[in-house]
C-alpha cells in the first residue's frame, strides 16, 4: 500500500513539474496561452500535438480527441462512441501506440517535451 501511495505521489510531483515547465514556457509567450494565435509555449505544443493527431486514422483521432482533448473518461468516451469501455481501452492503446510513432518520426520538439 505504501509503495502504491509513494508511486502515486511521485507521479503527481512529476506531472506537477511538467506542468510548471509548461507554465514557464507559457509565461515566456503569454499570447500563445491567451488564445490569440498559438505560436509557442504550451499552446504551441498543443497545436503541434493536434497536427500530429490529424495524421492518424479517423478511429485513432476520435478516441484520442475524446479522451485527451475533451478530457472525457473512458466511460464517457464509450458513451459518445457507442462502444463498450473495453473497446475504448483497446482503441486507446492502439491509437497511442501509433501516435507515439508519428511523434517520434516527425515532431522532434513534441517528442522532446513528452519523452523527457
Amino acid at each position, binding site marked *: 500500500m505504501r509503495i502504491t501511495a509513494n508511486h502515486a505521489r511521485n507521479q503527481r510531483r512529476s506531472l506537477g513539474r511538467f506542468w510548471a515547465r509548461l507554465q514557464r514556457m507559457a509565461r515566456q509567450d503569454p499570447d500563445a496561452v491567451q488564445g490569440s494565435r498559438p505560436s509557442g509555449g504550451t499552446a504551441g505544443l498543443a497545436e503541434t500535438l493536434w497536427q500530429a493527431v490529424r495524421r492518424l486514422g479517423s478511429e485513432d483521432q476520435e478516441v484520442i480527441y475524446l479522451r485527451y482533448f475533451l478530457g472525457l473518461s473512458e466511460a464517457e468516451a464509450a458513451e459518445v462512441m457507442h462502444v463498450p469501455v473495453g473497446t475504448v481501452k483497446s482503441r486507446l492503446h492502439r491509437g497511442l501506440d501509433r501516435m507515439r*510513432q508519428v511523434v517520434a518520426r516527425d515532431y522532434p520538439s513534441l517528442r522532446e517535451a513528452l519523452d523527457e
Partner: protein
Amino acid sequence: MSVTVPPRWEERLAVVAAAFTYPATPDLSARLSLPSARVRSGSRLAWSYAAALLALLAMGVLAVPEARAGVIEFLRFGAIRLILGASTATPVATRIPVLTPTVPPLSGRTSLEDARTSARFPILLPTYPADLGPPDEVYFQEFAGQVVVTVWHADGGVPRLALYHITERNFGLKAVEIVEQTTVNGLRALWVRGPHLVQFQDLRMGEIQLVAGNVLIWTQGGVTYRLESQVSLDEAVRIAESLR
C-alpha cells in the same frame, strides 16, 4: 512496428492536449435560429449546441459518423469541461430555487497568504466592487494542477461570490442548458446560465454539486477562472476585468 507507450508519456500528452486552443467559433447568430441562440450586443454572441457542433466540424472531428450523436454534447474551455444539456436523472431546475454561489466541497481550506506561497501562479483578486475586500474563505488544492478557490460572504454569511482559479482540468460542468459567448479583457469567455451540475475533482473523486447558475468562465495568463455569483453578465464581466 509497435512501440510501448509509457504511462508518463500518456499523462504528459493529456497535459499538452488540455492546453489546446480551440478555433474561434463562427458567428452563428445570423444563420441559425435555435431556441437557446440569442444575440447580445457588440461582440457577445449567443452559443448553443450548434456552436459546439460547428466548432467541432471546423476541427474535422465529426467526420467520424459514430461520434456525431454524442460529441456535440461536450465542450472544453480552458481547464473546464462543459457537457451541454446532458440528461440527468433528477430535474435540477426544481431543486435549487435561488441563486447562491456554491461553497466548494473541497478540502484544503487555508489562508490567502499560504495559498499565495503555494500557488505557482499569481492569485489575482477582484478590485470591484469596491466594498468587496479580501476573501472570507480560501481553499488550495494540488493534484496534477492547482486549484485556488476564494469565497466572499454577504451579510449573514451567505456566499456572495466564489472565484475559482484552475490550472488543470479538474472541473466539469454538466447538464448545461444555456451557454453564451462573451469577452473578458477582449478575450473569449463563456457565460453559463441556469441550473447545472458541477463535478469537482477532489480527494473524493467525482464529487458533484448542483449549482443555480450564472457562472462566468475565462482564461488569463494560463489560468482558467470560474466566477460564480448572483450578478448579471455585465456586472460579472466588470468583476472579472477588475482582477489585479
